[in-house]
């Protein structure tokens, strides 16, 4: 039974192994045991603390199935905190001339701090097997459930960036046309620096004036707001969840940044708070739903057969209740199919 809970120190080996097996893992989690260890410690600290408003906390959730790690997902309470988060805002500028009969939209990329302080969801780190879709969706929905249960810990606006397109040689055409002109370092190096905490070099090096999109080479224009093939499933999940990617792209690779207002996220909008009912008859053919307890450091979510009964309670298996550490009539957050 797929179970999602906060990462613990004992997950470190499995986390490192998973990070090492997924291509470009830095997008989701650092592929570096030392950094992973620090991240898990930060997450445990944040969960144990009393927190009134989002700061530099990071929360790491893991999904396990039959005792093995199936995936992980990192949630950053406030992007860029305590400084600024950098993105390109794709401004629309209407250029109209009645004289020339012209009325067209120009797009220009403006370095923006708009997303500073928004809650940032990194794409789930999940092995590329047949279970990927199920595990990713469960992780995303569990993270949203956790956010909804703890509004004081997160921002009202949620963002989720996906890595930008690369060409057959693994190079980013957007970086080549834009970033490389402003940085004196290679793409990987810039990416590495950007993951660090001190992003003051961004103010020093990045363009202060908007960049007109139509003046860029076609290869860069085509990459704008596009992610890599291997992230298309995540792209689809975010769309299903009501995220939109219209205005913001990554300053390095032009990848899309998805946005949603917390109450408009699908899994939050349709979630029901229902009393739990363990039901021995459940488990044969009932659809799986995501059940989420309302805890902080004992946070748990399970993907389990779940049905809303006519009496207004949610029926599920004893194992699911067990994993949620809940008993009958405890209130549970349900994301039912």
């Amino acid at each position, binding site marked *: 039974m797929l179970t999602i809970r906060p990462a613990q120190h004992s997950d470190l080996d499995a986390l490192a192994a998973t990070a090492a097996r997924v291509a470009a893992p830095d997008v989701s989690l650092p592929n570096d045991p030392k950094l992973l260890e620090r991240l898990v410690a930060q997450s445990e600290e944040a969960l144990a603390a009393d927190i009134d408003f989002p700061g530099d906390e990071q929360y790491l959730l893991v999904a396990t199935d039959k005792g093995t790690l199936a995936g992980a997902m990192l949630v950053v309470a406030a992007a860029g905190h305590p400084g600024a988060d950098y993105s390109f805002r794709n401004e629309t500028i209407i250029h109209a001339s009645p004289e020339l009969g012209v009325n067209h939209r120009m797009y220009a990329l403006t370095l923006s701090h708009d997303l500073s302080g928004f809650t940032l969801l990194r794409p789930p780190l999940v092995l590329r097997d047949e279970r990927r879709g199920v595990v990713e969706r469960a992780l995303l929905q569990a993270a949203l459930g956790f956010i909804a249960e703890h509004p004081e810990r997160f921002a009202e606006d949620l963002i989720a960036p996906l890595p930008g397109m690369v060409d057959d040689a693994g190079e980013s055409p957007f970086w080549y046309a834009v970033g490389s*002109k402003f940085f*004196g370092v290679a793409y990987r190096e810039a990416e590495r620096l950007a993951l660090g905490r001190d992003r003051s070099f961004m103010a020093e*090096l990045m363009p202060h004036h908007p960049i007109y999109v139509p*003046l860029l080479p076609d290869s860069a224009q085509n990459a704008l707001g596009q992610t890599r093939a291997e992230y298309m499933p995540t792209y689809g999940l975010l769309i299903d969840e009501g995220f939109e990617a219209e205005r913001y792209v990554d300053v390095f690779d032009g990848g899309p940044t998805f946005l949603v207002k917390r109450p408009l996220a699908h899994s939050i909008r349709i979630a029901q708070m229902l009393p739990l009912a363990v039901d021995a008859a459940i488990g044969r053919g009932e659809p799986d739903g995501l059940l989420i307890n309302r805890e902080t450091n004992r946070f748990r979510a399970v993907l389990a057969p779940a049905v809303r009964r006519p009496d207004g309670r949610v029926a599920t298996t004893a194992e699911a209740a067990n994993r949620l550490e809940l008993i009958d009539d405890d209130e549970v957050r349900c994301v039912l199919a």
Partner: protein
Amino acid sequence: MPGERFVVRVATGRDVDAFHALVIESDGALERHAESIEASRATIARTVRSLAGEAGDTERGYVLLLEDAASGEVAGCVQLVCRIGLDQPFYDYRLGKIVHSSSRLKSWRCHDVLYLCNDLTGCSELHSLYVRPGARDLGGAALLTKAAQLFIAGRLAEFAPRTIIEMHGVRGRDDASPFWEAVGRQFFKVGQREAERLVAEGRKAFIAELMPKHPVYLGLLPEAAQATVGGIHPVVAGLVPLLEQDGFHFENHVDIFDAGMVLEAHTRTLNGVANSREVVVETGDPGAGAPSWWLAAGEGEGFRMTAARGSLAADHLSLGPDALRRLGTTAGGCVRVLAATNA
């Protein structure tokens, strides 16, 4: 010296057809001019009103014509505007620099940036310099630019402290400007010739409506476009050193359509203004060894300018009768004189 074959004079109402023939013949090189005969008539009428002291600040300007002294045929022109941009905005790009440096990344980068601006508002301008192919080898363009300076020297109060001249920019195959293709076309959605035609007709509102409001990073443009910024068309390449000798400098402004260089000068320090002076002429036979001079005589409609050899002693210049005839003056008359050391 070649300039001796020509005189430069101010256009009058009788020159409309000849001027219009130049506009048509130039096939777009006189890009500020609409191709209708009415437009040519209006331009000449402006000169006439300006000479008569009837033109306001926003329109005062003069057309000077290059004329074959023997045949009387018009062989070229240049136009002087006393103040640009006072009625409609005058646009160009300023080529500026933005430096980004990060000590942590040990990075130092200097970016060239184009700013759309109206910085040259209120300057004087020389434009529409055109010489028929037959007169190009004979120093027609040099004579016209010197004539413009001597004309300015005689009416200095009418001109601004700064004078500019735009050079034709680089064109690629099909006479297309690589800069236009990479930049202008993206904003205007029309061909360059069409955009120039609208400007020539005074319909310039579309520039404010459509031009980039934000500066353009040069380094992000295609290399073919970058290479033409501040460049000049081969046709005018010979002219630039002459203008530089006369005090014009490239001060980082370029044309918004083809990114051709704009040359700028402090009007009072222009060679023809700062170093010319008025002397009395007398008839003589200076001979082939005498120094060469740029010469201008006459006021207003009577302005005439040419080149000739002559002997200068104190405030008297001795010229041959042919030169006096070209200047429309006689012995005892007053002539503005500028040494033509390189002619």
